[in-house]
């Protein structure tokens, strides 16, 4: 359940940014989560509800964008989408892959007032 500490750092970021961007309330937060970000979406949603209470994001909606994981094969240079870390290259079956994306754990944007 490190999802709670992730959500707490999201809230801390919202608080920090409110000083710079001058807003009082956050209505919606959009996060981008890669399939290999070590995050369980359900746990994250639950943790967000806990973390947002009695903060400037009280009641804020959480929107999650699931990004796609892509890899490049070191053997044949093919690049492709993968669903598991242990997927082989679909062309040459090699596991010598370089991960291009899939570990994203980002705050994309905020709807504020």
């Amino acid at each position, binding site marked *: 359940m490190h999802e709670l500490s*992730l959500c707490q750092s999201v809230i801390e970021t919202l608080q920090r940014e409110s000083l710079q961007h001058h807003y009082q309330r956050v209505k919606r937060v959009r996060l981008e989560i890669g399939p290999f970000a070590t995050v369980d979406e359900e746990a994250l949603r639950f943790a967000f509800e806990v973390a947002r209470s009695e903060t400037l994001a009280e009641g804020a909606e959480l929107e999650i964008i699931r990004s796609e994981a892509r890899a490049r094969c070191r053997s044949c240079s093919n690049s492709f989408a993968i669903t598991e870390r242990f997927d082989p290259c679909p062309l040459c079956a090699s596991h010598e892959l370089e991960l291009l994306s899939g570990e994203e754990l980002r705050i*994309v944007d905020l709807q504020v007032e």
Partner: protein
Amino acid sequence: MAEGHGDHHHHHHGEERLIRLEQDILSKNNEYAAANRRWLSERNILALNLLSSPGSGKTTLLTRTIEALRGKLPITVIEGDQQTDNDAQKIRQTGAAVQQINTGKGCHLDGHMVGHALESLQPPSGSLLFIENVGNLVCPAAFDLGEAYRVVILSVTEGEDKPIKYPDIFASADLLLLNKLDLLPHLQFDVEQCIDYARRVNPRIKVLQLSATSGEGMDSWYQWLSATRQLAEIGQ
């Protein structure tokens, strides 16, 4: 669109707008980790982050390693546990300096906690620092502590499919220690299959097989430590 400073005069209370942040959620942790890494490298300290599920043998490996390397290499330890300082006491009995971190409900160490532990522990220059993470094969993977290398310990009693069931932690590790080798005769554990799974998830992972209780295979671990330290020194 992103908004800069000085635009607040235009925003009245209740006016909704979109702010583009594009910020890594772990950026704060990564800043703490980077500060730790700088602090450690200035003092030529080699830090290793030890990760495993509960009971794989992290503390047993550490006490044996400290005893074997006594007089050869100064070693200090940061112990992460949710509760108790049992492990810290075991380390202290070997004579090594140790700093306990109790995470309470927290399931992992983070860069901030380790920064504070470094301040109290004050590991000596040129030493080896082991950070025993909270026993957990999932959550600690996401949190950089400022370590030079990640060592994941898997004991043969846990089943050979763990690298593909918990791929994130194996993908981020530099070294896999396959522990409790002495128990192999009593189990159906396919060592080759396990290593193959680990390499599918992480083609660059190095694997050593050992038993922290019988001592079998421990020499290759000590050799890895000494080679890694020499590499770190050359890198200075």
